[in-house]
């Protein structure tokens, strides 16, 4: 139904005309596949349409052409895709009629078309479903240069500290106001005291027709008269001093308050980002490099902290100061103010031009930095491999290359930057000269007094100094903006495994699992293909198949590390997407091939899933996992520190600790992913015993490379390229003589070969030759 309604609307504009012309009266579109490739795999538009009568193909290149096949002649239609490239093929009873190619973006449409065809064949056109395309919400990363607007988003983190912020701003205003006093005082100082006095002295000196003695007497008189106005000088000076002291005290308070604030904001930022990381699915982490994430949380937040505590407040101070000074200038002499500030737009323009280029440079710089940390995060954990293959020099080379890239990117920024701000200084110097020139003329024109000019020049000096410092801040501001953008890239990620809107509490599950039509894609690769399977509570399923068949992926879907692209997974009859993630996963115990232990004591590691477990419980779990005795042999027993930087455990020992960890949470559903593949047969036997304890009474899905490990399984499921190929007991599958029987025989032969002590080197040599 949906297909018939929706198909025509998907026809691209340019092909709608020809298609409609081609349709016969009464012919309805059932499904449409918009081709984006031609037969030679060049990008080109085209269309395959299915109606109730025909299969139609419209091509635009190499020349427009229309082909059609009556449905009676078409025996089957199949859609497949591989590595991003899909093909839709139509077959008659005798051979292939047509083959259409498309990119994986259109795979959904192709599949829908093939299904619609099958449905028409089955006589139920209405059932052709319109499959919704899966879109990974965690995808898509913006590449735009960092905008300063990003910094405003930091306000969200300042909200809990609004009072402190207000205090900080008030202190800033106070500091600025106090800073405005001293130049202002120069005005009365010059105009009321110094200049008149100077004039009188001048007059007395230059008076003509008087004797030397008389001149001396007049000067003495001037001095006596001047004593009265000069007595006001200490007052003005103490006003200056007071203002300076006040500015100092307020500036100190302001710095302290804001540094505290920024420290807290950036800590919040780190916490929020880290907490958000934990909400994101495995999909996100497998696509991101550890070093990159680490650098986002550590150095990017630090850069923001520096910006908030240092730059931002200077910036605000400067802004307030510039506004205040400008107001003062206009108050004293609007005309002079207007002329002298004419360089301001020029500076603003320069800053604006440079900012964009700087911003791109800084973003590139951040990325180069992340690249370097990635090399570290990659090689330090992998150091054994590096040493084993003697690749130290290459790794050093790789690091050097990443570092050279940082230097190169920063050089480019620095070149721009170092040119930029002396330029601003020069422009400002011009402004000052203009102020002098115009000011002198205004004094000559008797529009202003010398006092006004003095105060004015004191202000304008300040103005330009502030302007310069502000443009210099463009650097750290842009850096901070680039960092903020990188952090918000993480924060804006919507978890692709979202928490349900209306959660259903799972409580303690019974453990019935039902997969119906589950498909999953990694990017464009179909890894799990329409798997349907029902597992009863307490049943043990063995999952078998070649490597890369999608076994681990299927288990990851059951654990909800990913959500299926199509289909659904129900546990105890409820779609697992309606359970809160944490509550659901508490019902699942996992033992993986590569057990990961955290840095901490063995008992902490065993109790990882249930930190409140008692020591008795921990020991009981360890006993059941056959780990107790080897733990006692460690120097500090259960208090031995393991994990990275700690005591080294062998693969089998780590495995048993991880089994104890899974046992302790007493899960209803147990997932074993090649839990015994990396250990020798003796250890495997011990682990197998441990696992038998674990499996009892729980729904278990186990993957094992050694088929003998699955002897306890109630049912075996053979997965082949994402599909279920066979299912049944060992006996049934052996009798069916299919994939499983082949695998089993091959392994049996291998083991017999091992027993016959076939020298491994011989095999190796053969392969090399």
């Amino acid at each position, binding site marked *: 139904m949906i297909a018939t309604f929706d198909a025509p609307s998907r026809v691209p504009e340019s092909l709608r005309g020809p298609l409609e012309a081609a349709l016969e009266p009464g012919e309805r579109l059932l499904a449409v596949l918009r081709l984006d490739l031609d037969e030679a795999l060049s990008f080109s538009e085209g269309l395959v349409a299915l109606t109730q009568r025909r299969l139609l193909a419209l091509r635009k290149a190499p020349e427009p052409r229309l082909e059609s096949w009556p449905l009676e002649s078409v025996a089957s239609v199949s859609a497949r895709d591989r590595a991003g490239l899909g093909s839709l093929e139509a077959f008659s009873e005798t051979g292939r009629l047509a083959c259409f190619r498309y990119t994986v973006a259109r795979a959904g449409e192709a599949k829908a078309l093939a299904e619609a065809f099958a449905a028409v064949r089955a006589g139920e056109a209405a059932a052709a479903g319109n499959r919704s395309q899966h879109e990974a919400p965690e995808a898509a990363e913006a590449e735009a240069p960092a905008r300063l607007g990003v910094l405003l988003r930091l306000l969200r983190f300042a909200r809990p500290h609004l009072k402190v912020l207000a205090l900080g701003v008030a202190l800033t205003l106070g500091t600025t106001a106090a800073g405005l006093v001293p130049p202002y005082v120069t005005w009365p100082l010059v105009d009321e005291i110094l200049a008149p006095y100077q004039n009188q002295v001048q007059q007395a000196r230059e008076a003509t027709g008087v004797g030397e003695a008389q001149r001396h007497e007049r000067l003495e008189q001037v001095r006596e008269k001047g004593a009265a106005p000069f007595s006001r000088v200490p007052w003005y000076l103490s006003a200056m001093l007071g203002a300076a002291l006040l500015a100092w005290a307020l500036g100190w308070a302001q710095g302290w308050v804001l540094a505290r604030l920024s420290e807290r904001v950036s800590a919040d930022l780190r916490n929020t980002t880290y907490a958000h990381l934990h909400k994101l699915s495995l999909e996100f982490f497998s696509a991101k490099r550890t070093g990159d994430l680490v650098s986002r949380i550590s150095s990017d937040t630090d850069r923001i902290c520096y910006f908030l505590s240092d730059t931002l407040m200077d910036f605000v101070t400067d802004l307030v100061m510039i506004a205040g000074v400008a107001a003062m200038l206009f108050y004293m002499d609007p005309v002079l103010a207007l002329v002298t500030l004419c360089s301001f737009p020029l500076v603003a323009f320069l800053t604006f031009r440079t900012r964009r280029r700087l911003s791109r440079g800084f973003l590139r710089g951040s990325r180069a930095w992340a690249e370097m940390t990635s090399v570290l995060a990659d090689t330090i954990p992998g150091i054994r491999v590096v040493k084993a293959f003697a690749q130290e020099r290459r790794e050093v080379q790789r690091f050097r290359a990443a570092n050279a890239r940082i230097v190169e990117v920063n050089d480019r920024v620095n070149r721009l930057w170092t040119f930029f701000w002396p330029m601003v200084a020069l422009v400002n110097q011009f402004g000052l000269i203009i102020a002098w020139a115009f000011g002198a003329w205004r004094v000559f024109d008797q529009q202003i007094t010398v006092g006004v000019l003095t105060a004015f020049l004191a202000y304008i000096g300040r103005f330009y100094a502030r302007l310069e410092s502000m443009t210099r801040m463009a650097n750290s501001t842009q850096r901070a903006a680039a960092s903020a953008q990188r952090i918000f890239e993480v924060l804006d990620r919507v978890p692709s495994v979202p928490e349900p809107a209306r959660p259903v509490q799972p409580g303690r599950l019974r453990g019935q699992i039902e997969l119906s039509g589950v498909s999953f894609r990694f990017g464009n690769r179909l890894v799990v293909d329409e798997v349907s399977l029902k597992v009863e509570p307490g049943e043990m399923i063995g999952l078998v198949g070649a490597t890369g068949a999608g076994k681990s992926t299927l288990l990851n879907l059951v654990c909800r590390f990913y959500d299926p692209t199509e289909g659904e997974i129900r546990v105890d009859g409820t779609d697992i997407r309606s359970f809160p993630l944490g509550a659901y996963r508490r019902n699942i115990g996992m033992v993986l091939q590569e057990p990961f232990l955290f840095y901490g*004591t063995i*008992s902490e590691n065993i109790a990882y899933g249930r930190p409140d477990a008692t*020591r*008795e419980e921990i*020991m*009981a*779990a360890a*006993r*059941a996992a056959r780990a*107790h*005795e*080897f*733990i*006692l*042999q460690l*120097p*500090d*027993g*259960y*208090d031995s*520190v393991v994990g990275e*930087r700690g005591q080294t455990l062998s693969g089998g020992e780590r495995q048993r600790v991880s089994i104890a960890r899974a*046992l302790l949470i*007493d899960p209803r559903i147990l997932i074993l992913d090649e839990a015994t593949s990396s250990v020798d047969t003796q250890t495997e036997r011990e682990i197998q015993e441990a696992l038998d*304890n674990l499996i009892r009474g729980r729904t278990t899905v186990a993957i094992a490379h050694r088929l003998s490990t699955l002897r306890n399984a109630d049912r075996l499921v053979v997965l082949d390229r994402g599909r279920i190929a066979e299912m049944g007991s060992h006996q049934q599958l052996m009798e069916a003589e299919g994939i499983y029987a082949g695998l089993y025989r091959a392994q049996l032969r291998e083991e017999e070969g091992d027993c016959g002590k076939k020298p491994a080197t011989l095999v190796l040599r053969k392969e090399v030759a």
Partner: protein
Amino acid sequence: MSPPSRPVASAIALRHDAFGRLVLTTAEGLEHVGVVPVRCFPFSDPSGAISFCDEAGHEVCSLGSLDSLAAGTRAFLEADLARRELVPVIRRITRVSSGPEPTLWQVETDRGETSFQLPNEDHVRRLGADGALITDSHGLHFRIPHVRALDARSRKFLERYL
């Protein structure tokens, strides 16, 4: 969960034989010669679970807690354990060499003055609320039950590690 439990011994008897080996007699009267008592949680719960292992490292018998023993047996066991363990308790830190790692520490312990090398700061870890455990370059442990009870100078040395 039904772990296979070992015999739990509260009515055990302990003695040393002529070779100085520890002999354990279980409640059922079985004798095990040359057993090694192991504290399961030597730092987080030293008087808690004790396990007796034979020479091959297999557990022959376990004890939920020292408290479950008769006073005499307990004293005997504690004395035996004390002879197997060396975890000096630091009373005072007199000097820590400055400069790069490893650092040289001079300390006064309940067993006298000594000095040791500390490879890096990972070898100092917290123990409970206020305790610390220092592991020297040879793996020997030094315990500080209460950091706050140390004198100011010692605390100052420790500060950068905790």
